[in-house]
């Protein structure tokens, strides 16, 4: 059952085997696994419960960001360089993800094992991935799901001799509306909202929506033993005065890559290693616009049915960066996001907007190596410090240059950089400009859709927060099941890896529950 804020008329006390903080790819997966094993499970989700059946997912960005996004679409890192994209609703960030579904690449899996993540070996993960892919109907999109931007992307890549690959999609009965980021109004995208959440509920789990966790509680020996939470009035975003106390044998922290470390810090949990909140990676996303002589209408159909994966790993020569370290994809943005990120204002901006259907875009996911961090201000507000630096700047510039090459090769007559000075490339010979333009500290707003690492996993309690069993080194009975545990980003969309890791976390919990 799901309980929403307006159904709460008095303070509540609950007792359960496991209380899970967060209902995204991590929390929902753990809930499903434990509930199906017959365990008593309570899931707490800070955001609201919004469904296609009720007509809540109405595709309007202003309404939908208010409903499902962590900071209503306006969260940024402190230097304004990164637009934080994350979920705040039942189903978490999967409600606005693009449904790209990747297995953890072998090379990255090996790196994780070298970092001490025993129990997460490829042979352990493979059958889990297989099951998840079946459950979520993961498949390569048929050609009819390629919008014009995807077609142009393939055309440009082919001209450059770059190999493209179909991006596997978690969809069932997609109607090509193109409003994936706003939350699928047709239940076609296989987010947690329509997969693991209903499965968990059917197996007996109980979910409280609109429920903000104030604190993870501990017993006299320092073991996690529950949570203290407040209900949020959805209309105001403020506590409505009703409280919830949950006593549990185990607590699972699955509030997501931007929020789990915050819950930890706000709860005042121990942090002798000093690692909590450090190592924040977020896959910064540089993107470019292009003007074509034909309608592209990039806002319909699947955002990213194709991509170039051969640049996923950075290539070095004698320790010197050469190229790569990112994925390259077609981009999809609705009108208001294009408007807000195109350069210029007034008549100049208007002239670009007049050509909106002819505007296309590409995007890269940078496999960042230099992390930022999460901390709390003196008032207890989360602070996200992140700046592109070191080799990540080189990767970003290279990604932008590759995008510009592809856009021109696909027939673009002009490439537009979404920077503050409005850099425009009118010919491929101008691409080297991208080595010189200012891209730091907010000169370009990069998306940050895949936060990871702020409660990283490892064997050594001095250098990590969570053990390979997913249990916190310093807080017995507290498990973490979200991308916060990744020692490095997976180098691909993380959703399937988060789910797979969460299955492993569930197995550890089941062993402990007996």
């Amino acid at each position, binding site marked *: 059952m799901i309980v929403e804020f307006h159904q709460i008329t008095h303070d509540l006390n609950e007792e359960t085997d496991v209380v899970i903080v967060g209902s995204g790819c991590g929390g929902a997966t753990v809930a499903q696994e434990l509930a199906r094993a017959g365990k008593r499970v309570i899931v707490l989700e800070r955001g*609201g419960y919004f469904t296609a059946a009720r*007509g*809540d*997912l*109405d*595709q*309007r*960005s*202003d*309404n939908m960001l*208010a*409903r499902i996004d962590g*900071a*209503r*679409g*306006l969260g940024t890192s*402190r*230097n*304004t360089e990164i637009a934080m994209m994350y979920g705040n609703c039942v189903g978490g960030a999967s409600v606005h993800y693009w449904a790209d579904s990747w297995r953890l690449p072998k090379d990255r899996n090996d790196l994780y094992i070298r970092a001490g993540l025993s129990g997460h070996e490829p042979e352990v993960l493979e059958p889990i991935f297989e099951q998840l892919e079946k459950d979520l109907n993961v498949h390569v999109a048929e050609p009819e799901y390629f919008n014009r931007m995807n077609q142009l992307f393939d055309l440009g890549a082919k001209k450059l001799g770059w190999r493209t690959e179909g991006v596997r999609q978690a969809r069932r009965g997609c109607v090509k*509306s193109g*409003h994936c980021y706003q939350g699928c*109004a047709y239940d076609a995208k296989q987010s947690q909202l329509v997969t693991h959440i209903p499965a968990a509920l059917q197996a007996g789990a109980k979910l409280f929506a609109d429920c903000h966790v104030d604190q993870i509680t501990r017993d006299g020996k320092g073991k996690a033993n529950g949570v203290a939470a407040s209900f949020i009035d*959805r*209309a*105001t*975003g403020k506590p409505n005065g009703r409280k919830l106390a949950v006593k549990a044998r185990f607590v699972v922290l699955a509030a997501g890559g931007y929020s789990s470390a915050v819950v930890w810090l706000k709860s005042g949990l121990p942090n002798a290693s000093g690692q909590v909140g*450090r190592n924040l990676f977020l896959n910064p996303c540089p993107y470019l616009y292009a003007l074509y002589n034909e309608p592209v209408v990039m*806002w*319909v159909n699947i955002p990213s049915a194709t991509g170039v994966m051969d640049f996923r790993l950075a290539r070095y020569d004698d320790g010197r960066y050469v190229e790569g370290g990112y994925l390259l994809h077609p981009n999809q943005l*609705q*009108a*208001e*996001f*294009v*408007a*807000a*990120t*195109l350069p*210029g*204002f*007034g008549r100049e*901006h*208007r002239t670009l*907007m*007049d050509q*909106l*259907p002819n505007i296309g875009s590409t995007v890269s996911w940078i496999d960042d190596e230099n992390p*930022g*961090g999460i901390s709390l201000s003196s*008032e207890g*507000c989360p602070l996200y*410090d992140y*700046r592109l*630096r070191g080799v990540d700047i080189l990767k970003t510039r290279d990604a932008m240059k590759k995008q510009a090459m592809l856009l021109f090769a696909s027939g673009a007559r002009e490439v537009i950089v979404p920077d*503050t*000075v409005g850099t425009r490339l009118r010919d491929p010979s101008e691409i080297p400009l991208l080595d010189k333009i200012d891209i730091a*500290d*907010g*000169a370009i*707003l990069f998306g940050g859709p895949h936060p990871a690492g702020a409660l990283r996993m490892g064997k050594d309690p001095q250098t990590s927060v969570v053990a390979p069993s997913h249990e916190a080194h310093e807080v017995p009975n507290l498990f973490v099941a979200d991308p916060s545990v990744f020692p490095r980003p997976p180098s691909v969309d993380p959703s399937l890896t988060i789910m797979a890791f969460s299955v492993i976390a569930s197995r550890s919990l089941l062993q402990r529950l007996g």
Partner: protein
Amino acid sequence: MIGNGVSRRGFLGAGAVGTTALVTAGSWFWWDGGDATYRAMIGGAVPAVLNVKELAILGALAETVIAVAPGAPTAGEAETARRIDRELVFHKGSKLVSDVKASLIMLEHLPALDFLGTRFTALDAADKTHFLRNCETSSWSARVQAFTGLKFLILFFYYADSRTWRSVGYGGPQVAGKFFEGGNTIANLPPVAGAQARGA
């Protein structure tokens, strides 16, 4: 390296020192911009988080940032400034609110440094455009980001208005809209008492 980003700290880059200096300096110029002037600019609108002056400045900025296409609403008709003000209700206590406020005050009084006049809201249309162009290309990052941050909000909320879509060839959603109490559409705004709000 974490925490060393002092050059452009904060939303819109409006660092505390710079803002304090500007607000202090700005107080010298307020003699020609009393509350009555600003109140007249926003008509009967009642701000939720911003004060009257800040809402008026935001309205004037929005009118300059948005070049209206035939058949599309003006920034004032689209209630762009009021929608941003409403949005801030959900971010009370956050750095976003303090930085938006600081940036508005900064932009209102910076034209003096460009020898254009004492207040942005008092400039003519050409000088407003000239001033904002200077903001975009300034070597002072706080000034750049004060403008670009506000510009982002203005353009997002203006083009989130369905009345603007036809003019830019955007098809928009394929399902019916549903009112959300915690949303930020024009339907979420309280009615303006008396005269139509102008530029807000």
